[in-house]
């Protein structure tokens, strides 16, 4: 039996794996509860209101109250729904998201498994999430769900490709820096990438990468401005419209867990995770705090985008991915390739990437301005010239008007 060591106690291999799985599930549910509460509070702040305050001291027990409500609710299944697809969908959407937790580095030594192919594993498994969504859409035999499911599938595929290409660009940069005597196979693991960011976080080397990764993440999570699949004003809740009770809770939990994990991934890939300002020699406690500070910054950004952005239409969403994000990420990969192949220094990579980012945002701004019309105000105002009405010239009347 291969003894492996978990928190200082050596035990048989499979018990160790079991413990880690239990740890994943526990931490994820707690994190999801916290995120649900935080989202409602932060969203309330954006909308000039207070958010939940009744349950618990300042509403802190709100998500527990939600969970209890969901458990108490009856799991309704429409008669015409396809039994197996309808019931298995939440698990199919729920499990891959938990698997993504495995290669996530929280401190230098705290992670479930430092997989050599961490990044590829994350996206390989995350892809299965969409199967669950489509099963739910098709299973619940409801027009709105069908539309929501089709939109979700189209959106997932079209935003996964730019994200993967950007990850390739990041790994290229990491491989360049991590290559020890010609073997850069360590660059695949997320922890190694974080380890490399002691001095310069990758956001300086790949600003375009960060930008496209955040957009891809928003699309992957169906969060505004990409929440067309669950647009409440058109398809009224999209693929989980027929779910209720704990089944719906599972979709909800999966969504928030995916949000947390992808944000941790973004902060470790681009903001240096546990490593950036203080390096690796500082205590584990500070590293954990660092990770969570960066994660919460990004979470506020994601929640803010929910409050401040309307919803993109499905064809605009697709054309934005295929016509704008994809070309730019390909150019980014090629640029990285050329610079790194000819041994260019790191700041050149950063500069080129920053240039591409400026070009991208300029293009988006130009498209908006052209669409909006010449000036922002296409509405001129003509002075109100009433028809000839011989109205007495009114002097402001002081007292005793009658």
């Amino acid at each position, binding site marked *: 039996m291969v003894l492996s060591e978990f928190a200082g106690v050596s035990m048989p291999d499979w018990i160790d794996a079991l413990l880690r799985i239990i740890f994943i599930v526990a931490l994820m549910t707690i994190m999801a509860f916290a995120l649900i509460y935080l989202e409602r509070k932060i969203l309330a702040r954006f909308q000039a209101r207070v958010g939940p305050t009744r349950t618990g001291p300042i509403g802190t027990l709100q998500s527990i109250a939600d969970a209890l409500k969901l458990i108490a609710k009856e799991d309704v299944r429409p008669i015409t729904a396809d039994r197996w697809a309808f019931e298995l969908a939440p698990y199919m959407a729920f499990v891959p998201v938990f698997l993504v937790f495995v290669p996530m580095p929280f401190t230098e030594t705290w992670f479930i498994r430092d997989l050599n*192919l961490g990044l*590829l594993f994350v996206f390989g498994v995350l892809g*299965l999430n969409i199967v669950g969504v*489509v099963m739910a859409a098709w299973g619940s035999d409801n027009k709105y769900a069908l539309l929501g499911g089709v939109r979700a599938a189209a959106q997932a595929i079209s935003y996964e490709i730019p994200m993967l290409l950007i990850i390739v660009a990041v790994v290229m940069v990491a491989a360049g820096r991590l290559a020890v005597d010609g073997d850069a*196979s360590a660059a695949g693991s997320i922890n190694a990438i974080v380890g490399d960011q002691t001095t310069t976080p990758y956001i300086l080397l790949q600003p375009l990468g960060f930008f496209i990764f955040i957009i891809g993440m928003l699309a992957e999570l169906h969060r505004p401005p990409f929440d067309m699949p669950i647009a409440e004003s058109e398809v009224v809740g999209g693929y989980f419209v027929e779910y209720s009770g704990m089944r719906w809770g599972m979709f909800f939990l999966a969504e928030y867990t995916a949000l947390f994990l992808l944000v941790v991934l973004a902060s470790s890939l681009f903001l240096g995770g546990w490593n950036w300002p203080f390096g690796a020699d500082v205590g584990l406690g500070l590293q954990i705090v660092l990770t969570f500070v960066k994660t919460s910054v990004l979470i506020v950004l994601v929640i803010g985008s929910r409050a401040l952005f309307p919803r993109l239409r499905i064809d605009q969403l697709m054309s934005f991915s295929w016509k704008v994000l994809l070309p730019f990420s390909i150019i980014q990969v090629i640029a990285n390739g050329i610079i790194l192949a000819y041994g260019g220094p790191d700041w050149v990579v950063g500069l080129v990437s920053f240039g591409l980012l400026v070009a991208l945002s300029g293009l988006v701004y130009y498209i908006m301005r052209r669409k909006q019309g010449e000036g922002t105000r296409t509405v001129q105002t003509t002075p109100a010239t009433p028809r000839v009405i011989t109205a007495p010239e009114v002097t402001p009347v002081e007292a005793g008007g009658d």
Partner: protein
Amino acid sequence: MEEGVTATQVVFWILAVVMLISAIGVVTAGNIVYAALFFIASLAGVAGIYLILTVEFIALVQLLIYGSAVVILILFALMLTRARERPQALFGRSRPLGIAAALGLLAALIGGIVATTWTTPESSTAFEPVGLQAIGDAIFTLWIVPFIIVGVLLSIALDGAIMLASPDEDDN
């Protein structure tokens, strides 16, 4: 060297059974969408087999490409055309012909397996894991030509798809 059944063999047999069942499911499922879901299960099984052979890269790529992209496109197409349950295809006139062809293929496969002499690796444990760097070098140095040919092929296929999908002038 038959010393005890190792863990990998147990996992292998489980996966093999799962794949077999889902493969049969793909063929015999009445509902087309069930067939697609069984298809996903069998592909995941293949990825599992790769994992047992400790070639994670190919396993993850298999999961990524087949598991999420290809099958989703199939489901995408199924949902849009709202394919209803049409079991006729299973019980059509050519059913016996189909069974005969399947059995013939099975016989050929078993014959091939029995005839070849498998070179048993020296140690019974798996080979040493192949690093990412090795794969990268191999693709871009040793097998660069097929890689480019495949790239060209795929882009042609992409253009063909665009031509088919784009609404031709007369109907919009």
